[in-house]
């Protein structure tokens, strides 16, 4: 048999039907939904008198419009509340398990899937959310879909799909202290640009990736979409199996043994073909930070802000000028030392327990700069509980940071947590688009370590100076 990539193996085992001249009908193993991209799909079901075909493979969550203030307070935003109420009603009407604000397992959709053991190797996983690739860390083919497709999966548990090519992203060597998974993925995107992976699925390979924890792999896979890729994944290994074992939805007993035997067949065969390849030397990486208005506009922390004068393509040049104008930054200057107003530690990229531990390790015994507002938002209520058990909440609070309930929060600023016009943030989230964190707000994307260091000094900071 022809050697196959992990993506081809998962694809082959999920094709339900293939007709000439039409995309394949691909079976979906797990469908995650949230309050923002599902209501119109539920309406389609109602209009057409359809049911959710597999409510047992469908999970409902609340995260995007969700307040991160105390769950005991009434919700102030009536429109956001109506959206959450609608989600409750929809899940009730269609028999879907919902992790609502009352459960101890609520959280960002891409944090709770793995946490509950729902995310497993070899699965096809979709969600009406572009960061669904996060689940690829487990060797699943996981990608974001639009609301029409959410409706398709509800009604048929399938999607019409054409296969994507694989793009090998190899990361080799040992990371230097102060450099993390977030810096790897920001460096990858800075290298290939935000459209560089369009039409492909990233497979992350190499000794560095193998040495990363599941949470670090999730951080990397999470931002695959920021490189334009439909999905991103890491073939499963012992690190993966250890993480899954014993979680609520993980297979148990004989089922576990059978699952493990299947999962071990997934990694890409020797000699399988990739459409594109990129190799990165992890040892040469520095902490990364973005200066512009898309995640591809990233530089090493010691680097200078690029000069439009050195760009030849006219649209690229005008885009860079536009970005620097929006960010109010001067070309040629260092970003390091630029003053900031807000630090956000959170989002499906960096809100897991290891991210909070990293940020807390810098904050411990230090204070948030008095000019800075710092928000720490755990990715799930389980992460929050664990952080409290380890006393991380106390470290953050003693430092003067706000430690919140779980949700997307300032990652997309739908729930009231937002930047004011003109404010600068260092954020551990994944998008620095204009206004993403609040109208007129300006975002520097970075790792939890860099974010915490910047909170202490009140400016964009190389965490290595504080280690």
């Amino acid at each position, binding site marked *: 048999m022809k050697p196959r990539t992990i993506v081809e193996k998962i694809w082959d085992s999920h094709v339900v039907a293939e007709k000439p001249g039409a995309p394949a009908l691909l079976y979906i193993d797990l469908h995650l939904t949230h309050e923002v991209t599902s209501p119109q799909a539920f*309406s389609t079901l109602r209009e057409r008198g359809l049911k959710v075909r597999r409510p047992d493979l469908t999970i409902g969550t609340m995260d995007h419009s969700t307040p991160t203030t105390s769950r005991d307070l009434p919700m102030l935003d009536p429109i956001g509340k109506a959206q959450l109420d609608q989600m409750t009603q929809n899940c009730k009407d269609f028999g879907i398990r919902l992790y609502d604000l009352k459960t101890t397992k609520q959280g960002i959709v891409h944090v709770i899937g793995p946490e509950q053991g729902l995310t497993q190797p070899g699965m096809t996983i979709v969600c009406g959310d572009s960061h669904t690739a996060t689940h690829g860390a487990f060797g699943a083919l996981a990608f974001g879909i*639009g609301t029409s497709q959410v409706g398709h999966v509800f009604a048929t548990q*399938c999607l019409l799909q054409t296969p994507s090519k694989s793009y090998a992203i190899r990361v080799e060597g040992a990371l230097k202290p102060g450099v993390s998974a977030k810096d790897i993925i920001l460096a990858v995107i800075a290298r290939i640009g935000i*459209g560089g992976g369009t039409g492909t699925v990233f497979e992350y390979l190499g000794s560095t990736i193998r040495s990363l924890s599941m949470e670090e792999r999730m951080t990397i896979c999470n931002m695959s979409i920021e490189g334009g890729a439909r999905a991103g994944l890491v073939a499963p290994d012992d690190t993966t199996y250890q993480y899954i074992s014993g979680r609520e939805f993980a297979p148990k007993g004989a089922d576990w043994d059978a*699952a493990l035997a299947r999962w071990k067949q997934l990694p890409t065969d020797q000699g399988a073909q990739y459409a594109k390849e990129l190799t990165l030397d992890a040892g040469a990486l520095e902490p990364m930070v973005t200066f512009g208005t898309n995640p591809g506009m990233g530089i090493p922390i010691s680097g200078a802000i690029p000069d439009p004068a050195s760009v030849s393509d006219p649209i690229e040049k005008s885009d860079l000028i536009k970005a620097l104008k929006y960010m109010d930054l001067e070309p040629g200057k260092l970003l390091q030392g630029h003053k900031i107003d807000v630090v956000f530690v959170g989002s499906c990229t960096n809100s897991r327990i290891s991210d909070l531990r990293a940020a807390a390790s810098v904050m411990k015994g230090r204070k948030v700069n008095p000019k800075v507002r710092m928000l720490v938002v755990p990715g799930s209520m389980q992460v929050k509980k664990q952080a409290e058990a380890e006393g991380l909440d106390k470290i953050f609070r003693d430092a003067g940071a706000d430690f919140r309930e779980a949700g997307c929060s300032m990652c997309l600023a739908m729930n009231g947590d937002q930047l004011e016009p003109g404010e600068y943030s260092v954020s551990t989230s994944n998008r620095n688009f204009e206004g993403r964190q609040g109208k007129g707000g300006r975002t520097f994307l970075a790792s939890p370590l860099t974010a915490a260091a910047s909170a202490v000094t009140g400016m964009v900071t190389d965490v290595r100076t504080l280690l």
Partner: protein
Amino acid sequence: MKFEKIESKIAVLPVDNIDTDQIIPARYLKSISKDGLGEGLFRDWRLNSDGTPKADFVLNKPEAKGAEILVTGDNFGCGSSREHAPWALVQSGIRAVISTSFADIFKGNALKNQLLPVVVPADAHAELLKSPWAVVKIDLSAQTVTLPSGRLVEFPIDSFAKQCLLEGVDELGYMLQQDAAIAAFEAKRVGSVDTLR
């Protein structure tokens, strides 16, 4: 609904990597219906903070009235999966976007909403960028764009998506017809792959 030919003047927005947060900001995503999203289209590029229109934004120009084709820079629609982006464009009268490339999810979402993503080669794109408000024809059936100079360029489109647009095929209906194949597939997997049961 069936997709017809388009003949319209073009509105030119020469910016690369226009993300869906610009097309429609997140604060417009709290709606539980599809109604009224046109109001959020390019909201923060279109209007000042006091709600007055920015005179220099292309869709605010008097010539923009009736323009059904938007020409943009590379990688249009990158970012989030929000289908609100094509909904907002369509509700504002846009029927086709011409660019050199589109982000994958946006392209899929657009095609499901009678919004045609048209990819043209760099030289044709350059001509379009230089010809704001010129009239351009798009013929989906022939897969051609007639440029302002009269030159015809072809554009690629997935054959199934094309058929769906031209014939008004209901994709969900098409999928539901394959119920037996889906049931057979599921039956094979019970107790093995189907670990979440």
